[in-house]
């Protein structure tokens, strides 16, 4: 049976070069980077090399603006909590959007419990934040605006540079969760104009367990983990050296390959989206028609539920995901689709195909071949479909 991996938004297979670069640090180069001897300095050197590579990928001015974390989620927590707490003498108000990853959204909710105010700006039907809404939401008490670079579920890319012009003018810091974009499309912190940016290694062919937060020099942020001198004293804990090395190599590869990645994925994405709309009745494409990631195809299939489609796809060798209730275990429709105004019942039938560099046209055509009969079979079982035919 053919195997098709269309779940790159969940994670990617580490590049062979990444794995090979990591291996020595799991074996003989095992030193603690904080140690003074040769074992320590070898590990320290490897981490600093990785830091420079990550800085270069996102065009950060200085490697020391990169703080390694365990994940993109940790970077998001660090940014929100660290900035809010570090700047509370100015005010206790944060602005974010209704479609953020839970790492940002739940951090913001935690900050509310800690006495901060949060404004969640809406999005339009394509999932785009209106910079004017951000401008309106900013008050003299606002310290931070956090808007994701691209949404990991529907792939819509946000007008971050435009938002940055507003935050700079108003003297407010801007964070962007760029986990869905770094290593997939070009990301340049200077062009975007952001003060903080989160990224994650396993989203772009690096290992799990390594992410980073870019913090522009001079930004006031409180330490996220107390207890050591690591990461400039802001994130204690002996570094995950192998994973950080892997992240560095993934960043270096991405720097060379990113322009080509978009060019490879876009035609596949468009072929898949077009094919689904042509071959299946009552399928709707979610997200912005053009301002979108080259990797994401998110659709809602009416009258059926996402998890059952995924289980049948899996039986045919196709790995995909869904923002729907059952898969996310939240028992609620995706907050992203809900914020975009998608009917809650329709949102239950959402499917996300996220493409990556190993995928081919044959993969796309295989999915277009196996999915329509699955949809038909589930619709024959669905009382909603029967009700539609009756009416």
């Amino acid at each position, binding site marked *: 049976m053919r195997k098709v991996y269309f779940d790159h938004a969940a994670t990617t297979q580490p590049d062979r070069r990444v794995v090979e670069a990591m291996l020595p640090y799991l074996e003989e180069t095992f030193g603690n980077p904080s140690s003074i001897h040769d074992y320590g300095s070898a590990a320290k050197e490897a981490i600093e090399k990785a830091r420079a590579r990550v800085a270069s990928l996102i065009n950060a001015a200085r490697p020391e603006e990169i703080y390694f974390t365990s994940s993109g989620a940790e970077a998001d927590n660090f940014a929100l909590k660290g900035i809010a707490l570090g700047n509370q003498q100015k005010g206790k108000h944060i602005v974010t959007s209704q479609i953020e990853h839970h790492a940002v959204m739940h951090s913001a909710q935690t900050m509310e419990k800690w006495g901060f105010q949060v404004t969640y700006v809406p999005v339009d039907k394509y999932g785009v934040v209106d910079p004017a809404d951000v401008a309106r939401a900013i008050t003299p008490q606002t310290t931070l605006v956090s808007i994701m670079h691209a949404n990991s579920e529907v792939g819509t890319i946000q007008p971050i540079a435009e938002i940055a012009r507003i935050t700079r003018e108003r003297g407010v810091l801007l964070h962007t969760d760029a986990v869905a974009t770094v290593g997939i499309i070009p990301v340049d912190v200077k062009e975007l104009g952001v003060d903080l940016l989160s990224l994650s290694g396993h989203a772009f062919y690096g290992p799990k367990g390594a992410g980073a937060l870019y913090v522009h020099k001079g930004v006031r942020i409180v330490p996220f983990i107390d207890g050591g001198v690591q990461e400039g004293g802001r994130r204690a804990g002996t570094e995950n050296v192998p994973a950080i090395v892997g992240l560095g190599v993934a960043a270096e590869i991405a720097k060379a390959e990113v322009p080509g990645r978009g060019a490879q994925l876009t035609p596949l994405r468009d072929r898949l989206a077009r094919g689904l709309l042509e071959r299946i009745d009552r399928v709707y494409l979610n997200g912005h028609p053009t301002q979108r990631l080259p990797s994401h195809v998110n659709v809602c299939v009416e009258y059926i*539920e996402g998890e*059952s489609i995924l289980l049948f796809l899996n039986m045919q060798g196709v790995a995909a995901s869904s923002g729907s*209730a*059952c898969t996310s275990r939240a028992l609620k429709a995706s907050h992203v689709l809900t914020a975009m105004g998608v009917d*809650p019942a329709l949102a*239950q039938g959402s499917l996300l195909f996220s493409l990556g560099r190993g995928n081919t046209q044959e993969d796309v055509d295989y999915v277009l071949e196996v999915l329509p009969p699955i949809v038909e079979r589930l619709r024959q*079982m669905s*009382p909603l479909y*029967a009700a539609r035919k009756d009416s």
Partner: protein
Amino acid sequence: MQYSTKVMEHFANPHNVGEIPDADGVGYVGNPVCGDIMQLYIKVQDGVITDAKFKTFGCGAAIATSSMVTDMVKGKTIDEALKISNRAVAEALDGLPPVKMHCSVLAEEALASAIDDYYKKRVLPSPVKLKVGHEHEAD
């Protein structure tokens, strides 16, 4: 999501899918916003359920529990059928993940709703106490 082999069997090849045009009772529970709807049909002869079919909108567990509950009621008297609990349905499927237990509750309620409809169609007092609305169990 870790489903038992039994759940996957009933999901992949569900028993009793369809409608009974001249059903003696039809139950309809759930709503699309929650992500699952079950429509359950029963045929009753001399107080015994002789046939049962379903149509379900929902996840793998919703389809598997529909399949299992319709299997279980066939040949049972109304009184026996009313004693089928959601736990019994889940156990017959070798268990459900905790976040999916609400699907077995839905199956129990769909059956109760069909039996209630059977009594109403006959203008008889229904022994069924239907729950108002459908609440998910907390995960």
